[in-house]
């Protein structure tokens, strides 16, 4: 499974949204209806699944699905 697919799978499960809603430019808060607790849960699920640590400062920059994918790729040492 690619990082994109895995990230979207986690989002679908955590935020209870459909795969179709998970377009790259979708914003977690505005488009997918996440609140602050959802975001924390999502980030913790990604940390768990990808074995990375996401600092609070970095969290501020992750607004959309593409941001999350880029971030995980960068953390994993893969160019986006």
């Amino acid at each position, binding site marked *: 499974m690619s990082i994109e697919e895995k990230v979207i799978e986690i989002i679908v499960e955590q935020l209870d949204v459909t795969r179709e809603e998970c377009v790259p430019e979708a914003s977690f808060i505005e488009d997918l209806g996440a*609140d602050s*607790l959802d975001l924390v*849960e999502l980030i*913790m699920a990604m940390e768990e699944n990808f074995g990375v640590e996401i600092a609070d400062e970095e969290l501020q920059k992750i607004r959309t699905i593409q941001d999350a994918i880029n971030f995980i790729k960068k953390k994993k040492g893969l160019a986006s």
Partner: protein
Amino acid sequence: MPSRERVEKMNLKGKVALITGGSRGIGRAVSIRLAGEGAFVFVNYARNEEAARETLRLIGEAGGEGQIVRFDVADTKAATEAIAGLIREKGRIDILVNNAGESRDGLLVRMKEQDWDRVIDTNLKGTFNGCRAVSYAMMKQRSGRIINVSSVVAQSGNAGQANYSASKAGIIGLTKSLARELAPRGICVNAVAPGLITTDMTSAMTEEQREKVLEEIPLSRLGTPDDVAGVVLFLASDEAGYITGQVIGVNGGLYM
């Protein structure tokens, strides 16, 4: 007579609980009570293994099941790792009772920094450590109960207990904030505030001090660990599903 349904609702069968400081006093009574209602109880202790084993034996006598687990709640790394380990082992955590506490009494004017720090570390930071270690698992479960043991002196103050009462008042603020944070996930966070309870911690009182304090207690007796355990059981049960962010005094009317 309580209806059958009511009795059933206190049932904790299938639930996993962790009681910090479960080897003695209030923690022991809570451990036995929750295990007696069917919860699997992890009995945490920091030093006194013999006492923890005795709690486990009493759990067995009550027809319950449990396991002892050693860590110092004030040691963030050790506590976090140990709690993560037991959540992995059982695959869930339903009830956390942050009960571990200690006191180092003395008038503030002569209080040593170490005595301030140690009491704050064990009582307040220890409660934070426990709460943080279970929150994510409870969030994922969409359920859970956290019960923090505060004290009447958090509300009333007590000469000679500036450190202890500050730590216990801190627990109330922590409880209310966390109750707000976790409410959207169906997790209830409450505090109990025991008054004078007959434990090792209060046995140091002189007869004279005891007499004097009894005059202040409308129910005119000291409390027992079981008095507190009953309230903790209630807060952990399905009966208390609409209670969060509260401080329940268990003090015989000493503070109202």
